[in-house]
């Protein structure tokens, strides 16, 4: 952990992991989401993912990395937010190490997480929020939610001090993004016609491709969070893969039983649910724990993306909350159990107490993310109107926001 010699093997794996996690967003998530919207909005979603990757990079390099990982100048505030000592990566020479890898690489690896988190949110308000609002929101949210929460949990902040366990971002990534998605969907309201008009995925083919990329990329997300090529990375990769496969299988079985037929959307959603849910636990659990987490992920997320959403009537277009948010909660709580050596995990913890810490961390970050999301949308609503005109929603965001069309196959 704190060796100060560069290890080429660890560095090789982290270079690869950085590529893999960027690949999850570009084009993985972009495709997964892009395939699920209607033809007239496909570009808007791709554009959102691409521009978030670009703008968040600039913000991260400018201040984000430093505020998360550099101790605050005044120790008293470090519980809440880091310092600006490495703004613009100015004090990160190419020889600097973070553990046994170059610090520049560590900063870039962490950046890929900062990118995918706001990109996950756009799934919740897809097809009705304009590009400018989306961009404003993503920038603000990235700085005001992602950066402090990452500091609290990974950068030495108060939750880390409380002993919260979040191996690869169940809370930092999925809870924060999921809740933001739900709140945003509630703020902007349902898409016109929802839920009576069928709003079928325009290309499940693309979504399957995206799901495959997410699955593969997630090896970088979770096993990369070992920050080296070691036994933890190996077991984390195994736990990640097993959870995904179990969740896909269980989701398929549940659907088969309930609807008489398993669906493609179901299987890929199941896999993503398994991946998201195992994330916080992935580095701590054994194979059995991972299987159980995957199975639970499928059942709970199936329930949330179908029954609960229908029941409460919010329009979480692509189930950003239903899968990532709910999966994030479930996984983060279960981490308090399955990380324990008593249940095949690696940590010597008191399960009851740990579950309490996990729940507290989830609750506080969820509240903060929800609050800031509501506030930012209210602000954007004032400045630009939170959602596009009805006419534009009808025509689609591709033409009205970008004057382009996703396909011209004629």
């Amino acid at each position, binding site marked *: 952990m704190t060796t100060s010699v560069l290890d080429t093997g660890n560095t090789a794996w982290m270079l690869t992991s950085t590529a893999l996690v960027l690949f999850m967003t570009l084009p993985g998530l972009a495709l997964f989401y892009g395939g699920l919207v209607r033809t007239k909005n496909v570009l808007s979603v791709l554009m959102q993912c691409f521009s978030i990757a670009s703008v968040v990079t600039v913000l991260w390099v400018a201040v984000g990395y430093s505020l998360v990982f550099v101790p605050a100048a005044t120790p008293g505030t470090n519980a809440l937010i880091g310092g600006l000592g490495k703004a613009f990566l100015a004090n990160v020479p190419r020889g600097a190490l973070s553990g046994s890898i170059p610090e520049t690489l560590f900063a870039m690896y962490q950046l890929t997480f900062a990118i995918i988190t706001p990109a996950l949110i756009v799934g919740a308000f897809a097809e009705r929020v304009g590009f400018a609002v989306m961009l404003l929101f993503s920038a603000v949210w990235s700085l005001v939610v992602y950066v402090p929460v990452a500091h609290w949990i990974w950068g030495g902040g108060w939750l880390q001090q409380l002993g919260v366990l979040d191996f690869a971002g169940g809370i930092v990534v999925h809870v924060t993004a999921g809740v933001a998605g739900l709140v945003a969907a509630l703020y902007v309201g349902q898409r016109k016609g929802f839920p009576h008009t*069928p709003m079928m995925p325009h290309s499940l083919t693309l979504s399957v491709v995206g799901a495959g990329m997410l699955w593969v990329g997630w090896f970088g997300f979770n096993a990369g969070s070992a920050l080296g090529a070691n036994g933890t990375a190996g077991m984390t990769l195994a736990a990640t893969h097993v959870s995904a496969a179990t969740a896909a299988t269980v989701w398929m079985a549940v659907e088969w039983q309930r609807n008489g037929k398993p669906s493609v*959307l179901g299987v890929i959603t199941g896999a993503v649910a398994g991946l998201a849910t195992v994330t916080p636990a992935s580095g701590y659990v054994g194979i059995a724990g991972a299987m159980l987490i995957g199975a639970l992920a499928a059942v709970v997320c199936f329930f949330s993306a179908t029954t609960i959403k229908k029941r409460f009537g919010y329009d979480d277009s692509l189930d950003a909350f239903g899968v990532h948010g709910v999966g994030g909660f479930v996984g983060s709580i279960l981490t308090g159990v399955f990380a324990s050596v008593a249940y095949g995990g690696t940590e010597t913890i008191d399960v009851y107490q740990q579950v309490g810490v996990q729940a507290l961390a989830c609750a506080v970050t969820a509240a903060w993310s929800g609050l800031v999301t509501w506030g930012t949308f209210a602000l954007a609503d004032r400045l630009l109107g939170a959602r596009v005109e009805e006419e534009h929603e009808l025509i689609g965001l591709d033409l009205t926001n970008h004057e382009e069309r996703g396909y011209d196959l004629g």
Partner: protein
Amino acid sequence: MKFVIAIVRPNRADEVRQALAGVGVKGMTLTEAKGYGRQKGHTEIYRGAEYRIDFVPKVKIEVAIDDAELPLVLEAISRATKTGKIGDGKIFVLDLLETVRIRTGESGTAAL
């Protein structure tokens, strides 16, 4: 002249083309269409919700013919596409006042 519009099953287009060519028809125009009728559509499922899709894929074949050809043409289309099951489709016959072949400027039955 007559303008004949046949709505048939999508996988029957080639059979119709051959049958029409067999009775001397020299040209026709085909469009993809969706039909609603007695034949029931299918359901699609999305996040647990089932949606009924009432329209089924069809192909529309339009063919301009000489009056005298009409019986043969009706018979040829029916023969080529009839399965006896619901959804075989319809043939509609309209009156055709004039035809022009753009390439040559010919008109009337010479342009068919």
